[in-house]
């Protein structure tokens, strides 16, 4: 069986990467299991997905704790213990990181096994849309396992990305295959494990859970944070911007439907967005009758703000 984990952040397409690789294995006649695992369901939160592929029916289920390959789409996760990137890796595990410094990570993580970098696939034309992370990671991983043919991978990309309504399928496919080709020197370095761990396993260190005082045992949160103090504005990847010239001062639609109560309407019925708390769901953009609210990429909006200052 092959056991593969993809780590990324919400929005980086690791579920899609797992689906592409899963479909590619399936296309090669393997029994497959692929699944995402979400923590907090929002953009930017660490999440992972996993793929099992076997020539016989799969008797395992749930999170993989003994991976043969770990793919890391966001190198900042390497420093975040809660992301669990290194969980269960052994010297036989191959780690594929989206980084310019694979050697550096190998040293920092004191990892004795193989660490590779996700190939840098240039945007074409230069300066155009950057390649889809999920496609690149899946393409590279497909080459490392050594049992997926180029055509099978292409078929899997078409199947998965078409189902997601991707408009630039040809481009996605080029990126995936470029990553696949770029890893040719390492083809097959991730090995299918045949002998499973049947040996004696350590006894579980079971304990009797003691009864604690109510103060300790009730799952209360005592930190002094409040919804007001936690700045959910940092979650945003797009920012809603109201055009006062188009807003017809209906006075209630955006403000009432904002799930975070982040839009305040003042006495002359003008809406104001509280960017410290607006988390960028863009419900307001969708519901404003005169389309007076635009979605602006957060990076761009922040740059404009700086210039204005």
């Amino acid at each position, binding site marked *: 069986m092959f056991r593969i984990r993809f780590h990324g952040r919400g929005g980086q397409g690791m579920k899609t990467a797992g689906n592409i690789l899963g479909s590619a294995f399936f296309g090669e006649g393997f029994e497959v*299991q692929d*699944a*995402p695992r979400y923590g907090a369901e929002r953009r930017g939160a660490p999440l992972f997905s996993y793929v099992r592929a076997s020539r016989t029916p799969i008797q395992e289920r749930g999170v993989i704790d003994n991976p043969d390959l770990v793919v890391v789409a966001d190198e900042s996760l390497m420093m975040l213990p809660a992301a669990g990137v290194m969980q269960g890796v052994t010297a036989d595990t191959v780690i594929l990181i989206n980084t310019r410094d694979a050697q550096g990570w190998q040293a920092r993580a004191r990892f004795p096994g193989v660490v590779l970098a996700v190939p840098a696939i240039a945007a074409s034309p230069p300066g155009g849309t950057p390649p889809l992370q999920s496609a690149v990671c899946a393409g590279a991983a497909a080459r490392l396992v050594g049992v997926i043919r180029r055509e099978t991978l292409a078929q899997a990309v078409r199947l998965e990305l078409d189902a997601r309504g991707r408009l630039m399928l040809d481009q996605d496919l080029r990126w995936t295959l470029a990553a696949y080709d770029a890893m040719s020197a390492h083809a097959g370095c991730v090995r299918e494990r045949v002998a499973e761990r*049947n040996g004696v*396993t350590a006894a*579980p260190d*079971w304990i009797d859970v003691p009864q604690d005082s109510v103060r300790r045992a009730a799952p209360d949160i005592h930190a002094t944070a409040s919804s007001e103090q936690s700045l959910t504005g940092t979650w945003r990847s797009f920012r809603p911007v109201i055009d006062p010239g188009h807003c017809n001062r209906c006075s209630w639609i955006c403000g009432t439907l904002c799930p975070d109560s982040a839009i305040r309407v003042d006495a002359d019925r003008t809406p104001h967005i509280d960017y410290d708390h607006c988390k960028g769901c863009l419900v307001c953009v969708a519901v404003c009758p005169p389309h007076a609210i635009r979605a602006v990429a957060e990076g761009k909006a922040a740059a404009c703000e700086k210039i204005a200052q």
Partner: protein
Amino acid sequence: MTRALLTGNGAAAWGARLAEVDYVPAFPITPQTEIIETLAGWYASGAMQGRLTTLESEHSMITAAAAAAATGARVFTATSSQGLLYAMEMMFATPGWRAPFVLVNVSRAVATPITLEPDHTDVLAARDCGFVQIHCANAQELLDSVLIAYRVAEHPGVRVPVLVNQDGFYLSFTREPVELPSMDSVRRFLPAFAPGEVAFRASKPVSQAVAVLGGASYSYFRYELHLAVMQALVAYEEAAQAFAAEFGRRYSAVDTYRCDDAEVVFFMIGSFAAKAGDAVDRLRARGERVGLVRPRLLRPYPADAVREALRGKRAVAVIDQNLSMGFGGVLYAELAAALQGRPAMPMLCSYVGGLGGRDIRVEEFFAMAAESRNAAASGAVPATRLLYSGGELREVRKLQAIAAAERGEAGARP
């Protein structure tokens, strides 16, 4: 027949599609939402004929499902966890309307604390309400069970709703290969519902949510409902046989894995049973005679089949992925009742594990098998054990230390 990768949620939606359901009342909740999103997409594209309506709560959703079913429509709906609990008043009320429909529950542990991952405390809260319950372990079984569920629910001797259960995440979000039956073969197995007297019309009003005064008439109606649910044992067997004849996959009320010569067996429901199956293979490879018994049907309780599967075994490790507060595991209690007083029945050992999606590790299965075998040899019944490690408690203690420090408590270290 085509084979495709589907999640548990996708398989449930395909079950409803192939059953050609007329009506889907819906309310979203993680991890069930993908089921109704998929169905909504198919209704919108015209791939399915009928109607999906979003309701304002699960309480209304179950009411709408039963009300529509009472007109003779074929109805499908789905929920999970807190949604199922919120619907509970109508879960108890509607089976007495004697209108058949199918509800998929995507198991997710209940609050407090809130979590997203699975255990069976939600679905077992609906144990006593008059729904038939079928528990699935993989996506293929889920799709197939939705089809079987309609045969059982619509059986003239049954006519009660059926709940088909799958585990959140482990099944709902996990893709695996599923054979999609052809429409023709499904129509042969599950023809359009012939509702007969299940035909409520506004022009011919009938009151189904009636009141009775006096325990004798109340007892009569409740016992009739019980008998109808019991009748589902027969209807399920018929449906499972017809299903096997059409599709070649046999789903007995109680699934057994490598049990014939087993001395010790694991006893559990749902998708975590795959982990037990894996442990069985590993223990067998070491020469130990271990097996797995997995009831699919939990209501009606397949007592005869369970006894048959366990006769002559030495010990059973019952693994409950639920916790009845102040008692322990529900499966254990029911199994003990089913075996009580019968000759040649095994020692039962009770374990509670997998709460809130907590993994059950292979070494824990090994230890449960060994402990159960020893209990049978010594005759001493061990106390119910929560599968929980010292390492896990230490992690909790660390978090508690942070919490205590945040509260500014002196000597915060536990």
